[in-house]
C-alpha cells in the first residue's frame, strides 16, 4: 500500500467528526426535550392544582363497580342518522368496544349529542330470530327472539330496560320494561339492519329516559322456543355508572389550554372527562428528503409511536404514564411520529384532593422548535462534515502526493547517481529539514563514501603499480647483474626462475596501470573520422589469427559505418571484450561480433556461448577490480571490462551486459555520427 492510500485511509478518521456531531445533536435533542418536558410538567402541575378546586365536578367513584362495568359515552360532534350504519358517527372504528357473544364478537359504542343518547350495536349472529306478534320481548315468555336490551339504572330507583327486537329489518319499535310492566316506547327511534353473519342496531334515546348507570345486554337465540344466551357489557348484576365528558371541566380545560398543546383530564379511573386543544398537524414544510430523514431516525432516540399520544378511542386513558399519575405520581413520557420524526412530549400530573387522587391532568406538546433546531443542526453538520472530509482528504492526498514525489525523486536521483557514477552530485531535498532531508543527506553521504571507495579502487591499481615498480626494478636489475657473475648450475636455474617471476610481476603491474593510461589517452585523444566497418573487418581477421581455437563471425548491417573517435582505443575495447568472450567460451565456439545502427546509436556487440552472468554481477562487472574469473586465471585483476567501459564512456557511449539464450552478450552503444 503506497503512501497516498495510507494517508487516504487515515483521512477516513475525519468521519469521527460526523459521529461527534451526531452525538452532539442527539444530546441537544434530548436535553431540549427534557427541558420542554420539565416546563410542561410545571404547567401540568399548575393545572392539576387549579383543577383540584373543581373536585365537586369530578365523578364520584363507586367501588362496587369495576371499569368493565362502565360504559363510556362519547361526546359526538354531530348528530348521527339512525340508519344502522356507524359511518356517520364522528368516531373511529377503534372506538367500538367489544364483548364476546355466542356467535362471535359484539361491538358497540355509545355517544351523546344534545339531549339524545345514541347507541350502536353490531352483533354476530348466525341465525337471526325475529320477533313475532305473539312473542313479546320478554325472557320469560313462551316465545323468544334475538334482542338488545339497554339496561338503565338510576339508583336508588329500580332498573328499567329498553328492549330492541325486530319483526323485520328496518325501523323498529322499542319497548320499555320496568316494574310496572312492558310498553312500547315511541320516543325511542331505532333501526335494525341485517348484515351477513349478524345484524346491526342503531338507536337514539332521549337522555331523560335514561339513568346514570347504563349497560347493554344482548340476547341471542337460535330458536324462538328457547330463551337466548345473554352477553352483557357489565359483569355484575347491574351496570355501572356511565363515564363521559364533564361539560364544566371540559369548558374549564378549553380555557386553560394553550395553542399547540393538548390537555386531557381524566377521572380517578382514567376515564376522559375533558379534552381540549390540538397538537399542530404535521406540516409538509417539515417533510424532509428521505436520506436526511433516515439519518435523523438513526440519530435521535426513538420514542413511542405518536399514535399512542392520541386520546384513547375507548375513552379510558391507559398509557402507563397516565396510570402512574392516577396512582399519585407525576410522570412524563414522549412519543415520536413515524411520519415526520416530530417528537411529542407528554406529562401526566395527578389532581389531588387531600389524600385522594381525583384524576389526572395530561398535557401534551409537540416539539416543532426542537425539530427545526436539530434539523438545521443536522443539515449544517452534514455540510460541514462533507466539506471537512473533502478538505482533509484532499489535503492529505496532496500532501501524500508531494511527499511520495519527493521520495520518488530522491530514489530516482540516487539510482541515477549510482548508475552514472555521479556520486558527488547533490540529491533532491538535501536542504529540507525534515526526515526526507535527513534521508537525502544520508543517501548523499552513502553515495559519497561509495564514490570515495570507487575512486580509491580506481587509483589503487595505478598507485600500487607505481609504488611496486621501483622495488621491482631493484630485483630485476640485481638479477640481471647476477647473471654476469660466476654461478653454479643450480644458481643459474634459480636466477632464471627469479627472472621469470619478476617478468610476471612486471606484466601484472603494467596491466594494473593500463586503466590509468587509457584515461590519460582519453583525455588527450583527438577524435578522427573512420569507417568502423573497415576497422572491424581488419580486426576480426586479426582475431582469427590470434585465437585459433575459436571462430569469429562478423555481422554488419551497414555498408560503411562512418563514425568518429579513436579507432585504436575502440579496438582496445573490443580486444577486452573478445578476450573476455574467449575466456568464457569453449574450444571451437563461435564468437559473434555484430555492428548495427539502432536509431541514432551505433551498437557494437560481442556474443559468446557460455555460462550466464550471475545477476548480482550485472552492474558491478564493469567496476574496477571486479572479476568473475575463478581459480587459476590470476593474471586478471578485473580491469579489462573497466577499461572497456572507460573507452565506451570516453566516446559518449555506454556498455552493458546481458544474458542471452545459451550465452552472454556485451553491447556497446555509441552515439552515431554518420557525417564526418
Amino acid at each position, binding site marked *: 500500500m503506497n503512501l497516498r492510500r495510507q494517508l487516504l485511509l487515515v483521512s477516513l478518521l475525519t468521519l469521527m467528526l460526523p459521529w461527534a456531531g451526531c452525538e452532539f445533536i442527539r444530546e441537544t435533542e434530548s436535553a431540549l426535550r427534557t427541558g420542554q418536558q420539565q416546563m410542561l410538567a410545571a404547567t401540568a402541575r399548575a393545572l392539576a392544582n387549579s383543577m383540584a378546586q373543581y373536585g365537586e365536578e369530578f365523578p364520584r367513584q363507586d367501588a362496587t363497580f369495576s371499569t368493565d362495568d362502565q360504559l363510556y359515552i362519547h361526546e359526538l360532534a354531530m348528530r348521527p342518522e339512525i340508519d344502522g350504519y356507524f359511518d356517520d358517527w364522528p368516531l373511529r372504528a377503534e372506538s367500538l368496544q367489544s364483548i364476546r357473544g355466542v356467535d362471535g364478537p359484539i361491538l358497540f359504542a355509545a355517544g351523546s349529542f344534545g339531549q339524545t343518547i345514541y347507541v350502536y350495536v353490531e352483533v354476530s349472529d348466525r341465525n337471526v330470530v325475529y320477533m313475532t306478534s305473539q312473542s313479546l320481548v320478554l325472557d320469560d315468555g313462551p316465545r323468544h327472539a334475538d334482542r338488545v336490551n339497554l339496561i338503565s339504572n338510576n339508583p336508588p330507583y329500580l332498573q328499567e330496560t329498553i328492549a330492541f327486537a325486530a319483526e323485520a329489518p328496518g325501523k323498529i319499535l322499542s319497548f320499555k320494561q320496568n316494574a310496572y310492566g312492558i310498553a312500547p316506547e315511541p320516543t325511542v327511534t331505532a333501526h335494525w339492519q341485517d348484515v351477513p353473519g349478524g345484524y346491526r342496531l342503531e338507536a337514539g334515546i332521549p337522555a331523560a329516559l335514561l339513568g346514570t348507570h347504563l349497560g347493554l345486554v344482548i340476547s341471542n337465540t337460535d330458536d324462538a322456543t328457547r330463551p337466548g344466551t345473554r352477553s352483557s357489557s357489565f359483569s355484575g348484576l347491574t351496570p355501572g355508572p356511565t363515564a363521559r365528558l364533564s361539560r364544566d371541566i371540559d369548558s374549564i380545560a378549553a380555557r386553560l389550554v394553550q395553542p399547540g398543546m393538548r390537555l386531557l383530564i381524566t377521572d380517578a379511573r382514567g376515564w376522559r372527562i375533558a379534552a381540549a386543544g390540538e397538537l399542530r398537524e404535521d406540516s409538509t414544510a417539515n417533510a424532509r428528503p428521505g436520506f436526511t430523514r433516515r439519518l435523523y431516525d438513526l440519530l435521535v432516540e426513538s420514542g413511542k409511536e405518536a399514535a399512542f399520544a392520541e386520546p384513547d378511542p375507548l375513552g379510558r386513558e391507559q398509557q402507563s404514564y397516565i396510570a402512574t399519575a392516577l396512582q399519585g405520581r407525576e410522570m412524563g413520557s414522549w412519543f415520536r411520529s413515524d411520519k415526520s420524526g416530530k417528537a411529542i412530549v407528554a406529562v401526566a400530573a395527578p389532581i389531588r384532593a387531600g389524600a385522594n387522587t381525583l384524576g389526572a391532568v395530561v398535557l401534551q406538546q409537540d416539539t416543532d422548535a426542537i425539530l427545526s433546531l436539530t434539523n438545521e443542526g443536522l443539515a449544517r453538520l452534514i455540510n460541514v462534515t462533507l466539506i471537512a472530509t473533502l478538505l482533509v482528504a484532499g489535503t492529505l492526498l496532496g500532501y501524500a502526493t508531494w511527499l511520495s514525489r519527493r521520495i520518488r525523486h530522491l530514489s530516482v536521483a540516487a539510482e541515477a547517481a549510482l548508475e552514472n557514477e555521479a556520486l558527488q552530485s547533490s540529491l533532491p531535498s538535501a536542504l529540507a529539514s525534515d526526515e526526507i532531508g535527513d534521508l537525502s543527506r544520508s543517501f548523499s553521504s552513502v553515495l559519497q563514501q561509495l564514490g570515495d571507495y570507487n575512486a580509491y579502487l580506481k587509483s589503487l591499481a595505478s598507485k600500487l603499480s607505481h609504488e611496486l615498480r621501483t622495488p621491482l*626494478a*631493484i630485483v630485476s636489475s640485481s638479477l640481471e647483474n647476477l647473471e654476469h657473475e660466476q654461478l653454479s648450475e643450480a644458481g643459474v636455474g634459480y636466477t632464471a626462475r627469479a627472472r621469470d617471476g619478476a617478468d610476471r610481476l612486471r606484466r601484472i603491474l603494467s596491466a594494473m596501470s*593500463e586503466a590509468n593510461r587509457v584515461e590519460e589517452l582519453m583525455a588527450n585523444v583527438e577524435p578522427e573520422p573512420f569507417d568502423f566497418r573497415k576497422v572491424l573487418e581488419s580486426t576480426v581477421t*586479426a582475431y582469427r589469427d590470434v585465437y585459433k581455437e575459436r571462430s569469429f563471425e562478423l555481422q554488419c548491417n551497414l555498408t560503411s559505418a562512418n563514425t568518429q573517435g579513436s579507432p585504436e582505443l575502440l579496438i582496445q575495447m573490443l580486444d577486452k571484450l573478445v578476450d573476455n568472450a574467449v575466456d568464457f567460451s569453449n574450444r571451437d565456439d563461435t564468437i559473434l561480433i555484430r555492428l548495427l545502427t539502432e536509431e541514432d546509436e551505433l551498437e557494437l556487440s560481442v556474443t559468446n556461448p557460455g555460462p550466464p552472468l550471475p545477476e548480482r554481477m550485472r552492474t558491478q562487472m564493469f567496476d574496477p577490480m571486479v572479476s568473475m574469473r575463478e581459480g587459476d586465471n590470476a593474471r586478471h585483476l578485473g580491469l579489462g571490462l573497466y577499461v572497456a567501459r572507460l573507452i565506451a564512456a570516453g566516446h559518449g557511449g555506454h556498455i552493458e551486459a546481458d544474458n542471452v539464450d545459451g550465452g552472454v552478450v556485451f553491447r556497446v552503444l555509441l552515439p552515431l555520427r554518420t557525417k564526418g
Partner: protein
Amino acid sequence: MAKRIAIIEDEAAIRDNYAAAFRREGYVVDTYDARPPALSAFETRLPDLVVIDINLKDDVEGGFELCRELRARAADLPIIFLTARDSEFDAVSGLRLGADDYLTKDISLPHLMARIAALFRRLDALQKPQAAATRITRGDLVIDTERMTIHWQEQPVGLTLTEFWLVHALARFPGHVKNRQQLMDAAQAVLDDNTITSHVKRIRRKFLDIDAGFDAIETVYGMGYRWLSD
C-alpha cells in the same frame, strides 16, 4: 678512452646495480643521489652521458630541473630519463626538455645497454663524415642508420631513439605489417599497446609538422602498422 656516465638516482640499490652493469660494459660511472652534488660535480667536468631519475628523494621534479640545466650547458649531451613514472604526461614533458630518451624502470639492463651504446654510436657517427652505405632511402624518407637520423623531404625529423627504431623497423620493409611485438623488439623495449600507439602518434605528428600531407604510416587495425611507399 672510456666514456663517462653519470647516474643521478636516489634509490641506492638501483643506482649501484646500474653502475655495476655500466662498469661491466667498460664505462666509467659517477653516481649521485641528488641534484646539488651532481650539479657541483658537473661544474668541473661534464660526463659523456647522463641517466636521470625524475623523482630525487624530496625533490619531486628534480630530474626535470637537472635536465633543463644540463641541456642549457651542453646541447649535445645525451640525457636519458630512467624513472618509475610511466605517465604520458611525464614522458612528453621529459622529451620536451630535450632528453634523448624517456625510459621506465621496466626496461631490462640489456635493453638499456643497447640504447646507451646506440646513443654513443650516434655521437661518434656525427663526428665522422656521412657514409652512403648506412643510408636507406624510401621515397622522401632518408634514414641514416649510423647517425640514427631521419630526413623527410630532406628535412631532419627530430626523433627520439625509440621513435627512430620504430620508423626504421617499419620503413626497412615497406608494405609489410609489423605487429606490436616486432616493433617492441626493434625498439629494444618492452612497451604495452598504448605506449606503442602513442609513440606512433608522436612520430606521425613530427612528420606532419614537416609535411602536412604525410600518410606513410598506416594502421592495420588489430595487427599493427606498415610503411607505405609511393
